[in-house]
């Protein structure tokens, strides 16, 4: 049985990881790094879900975490495919440069 006093620290860890991920998404311009940051945010959410599941004595947290992992995997597949295509078009890998959709 985990020490219940650890719960705030786990949530703090999740919040810290999420913030780092969010800042990465907002600041970095390389799409691969942005994807890594998104993974970081998703895993921060996973930490929070598992921690809640553990401390509330419920399996749902872990089930949700698995769901998130599956969705993240699918998302990475799509995202990496897009990045590969952009690279193949000979364009610079810079998210700020990909703004044609505004018109």
């Amino acid at each position: 049985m985990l020490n219940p006093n650890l719960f705030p620290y786990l949530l703090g860890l999740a919040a810290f990881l999420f913030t780092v991920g969010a800042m990465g998404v907002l600041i970095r311009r390389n799409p691969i790094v942005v994807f890594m940051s998104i993974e970081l945010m998703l895993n921060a959410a996973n930490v929070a879900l598992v921690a809640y599941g553990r401390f509330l004595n419920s399996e749902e947290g872990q089930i949700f975490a698995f769901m998130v992992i599956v969705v993240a995997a699918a998302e990475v597949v799509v995202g990496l495919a897009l990045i590969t295509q952009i690279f193949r078009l000979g364009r610079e890998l810079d998210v700020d440069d990909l703004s044609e959709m505004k018109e």
Partner: protein
Amino acid sequence: MSVNTASTLVMLVLGFPLLGAALNGFLGPVLGRRFVNIAGTVSIFAAFVISCLVLANVVGAPAGHASITIRLWDWINLGGGTNLSVGMDFTLDALSALMLMVITGVGFLIHVYSVGYMEHDPGFARFFSYMNFFIFSMLTLVLAADLVILIIGWALVALSSYLLIGFWYDRPSAVLAARKAFITQVIGDVALVIAAFLIVLNTHTLSLPNIFARTQAFPAGGALITGICVLLAIGAFAKSAQFPLHTWLPDAMEGPTPVSALIHAATMVTAGVYLIARFHVLFNLAPVAEGLVACVGMGTAVMAGIIALSQIDIKRVIAYSTMSQIGLMIYAVGIGAYSAGMFHFAMHAVFKALLFMAAGNVIHELHDEQDIRLMGGLHARMRWTHLAFGAGSLALAGFFLFSGWFSKEDLLGFGTVSGPGAAPWILYAVGAGVNVLTGLYAFRLYFTVFQGEPQTARGFGVKDPGYAMLIPVVILGALSVIVAWPLQFPLPNTLHVFSDFLAPVFAGAQSPLFHDPSFGVALVALVIGTAASLVGIGLAMRLWYEHRPDPQVVLSRFPRVIPLLSYNKFYFDEIYDRALVQPVKAVARTARRVVEPDIMDGWVEGIGDLLRGFSFDLRTVQTGMIRDYASIFTVFAVVLVVVWVFIAR
């Protein structure tokens, strides 16, 4: 007369002209001229026969049962506790029977005349359709026993008049005249409708017999009844071309001559006289309104008589004489001499329709020449037309024992004693002056057109027209001599068939202004009036028989202001143009220049501009940069969480 008989008669008398209008309008152009001529005249003749039956029924009815009001069907039932319903109500009594006889009788002769007059006009089917429709409208108006039906008839005659004045719609002047007539009529319609609202508001009924019964409870001379009567009188003035709504009538002469004879002389323009006679129980409670009506009538009679002295268009002279004679009728119903007014209406319908049709013959023969300065000397070559026109002129001038003499002297005889103080004598003196004027302008026209020598080459080649145009003129010519003989003599306690016939209609109420003159007073009035007519005719003979060729030269002997006012029709058209038409046009121009582009378009386009500007600004949010969107998303997510955690809970 039973209800069933009355219903049948009403249906038939209204049905025939309406059927004629429909047949001529829809089938006439297909079936051709012969069909239209027959359908157009036979429908009115059938209505005339029915009118004779109505007259026989009214005359034959036992005393006290001569008036019958029937409801053909309920039209609009308002229900809901108002108890107000519009029914197809019609009255058959002496007054409506008289109107029926004149409208269908004179109307039939004019329709026959039209067959000849419109012989070469391509629009014959349209013409007869409109004419039949006019007869239908006029009959609806005079038979109506419901306020709404009356107003419908009132408006429909204005519509028919508009359509017929503008019959030759490719002439700009005819179209403008039609428009002017219609607009002036609508001024009167508005007054009439407001009067109707006031009546309904205070009597809670639309049925005329009920209205007449319930208005008796109104305080006599009160503001309400006076207001209603003044509004009714304004309606009557517009319809009957009385001052100040008279300017449309001379312009209405742009229509074909049969139209002038039927609508603008015999029937429609006398609808105002009929309206006041029909609503006499209301007017009897409002002496102020009656006085106004009498003064306006007499004023118009004088004014139109002076104008008629110097007009040079043959039809306009007759039009102004119509205005003047209707002024006398309006004066008669104003002082409460209703039978006398209606008698003059009937006589006037005969001799004025005759004068118009005879003038139509002249115009026709001279190939649409209407300027009397270019006429003259037609008496030998148009013998029958000349005889009829002469008889009509004598009747119009009130020559001894011609029909106009009986009605006009009858009317003026009552004028000598009816009214407060010295007013009757003043008005009678003016009336005698109108007699002089009538003799003057009637015989100025007669001498200028028929006597002397022809002024143009065409004048030598004229002849009497064909039978269709001649027979109605001759019949009316004979009638304008003899028709009054069996009916009425303008002295008390003598022959009074006509006024006895109408007496039941007007028996219910007596005007406070009205008094029967004694035999002596009436005799003096008769002698003076007859002498005045003779003076007028004699003066005309001296002035225009001996001073051919220019009828205008004579006028230069009068003080300069009279011919000036007369020739320019008292400047009414100019005054209305300056006072009403030009200001309205100026307002319209200003509105077009300022209000429309700056104000109307301003706010419509302003909204568009505002939205476009706003969306233009808003568009800059869409940078297309993912990081911007993510930032905004994050910021709002944080805000939401903060709100949820710290405020909402």
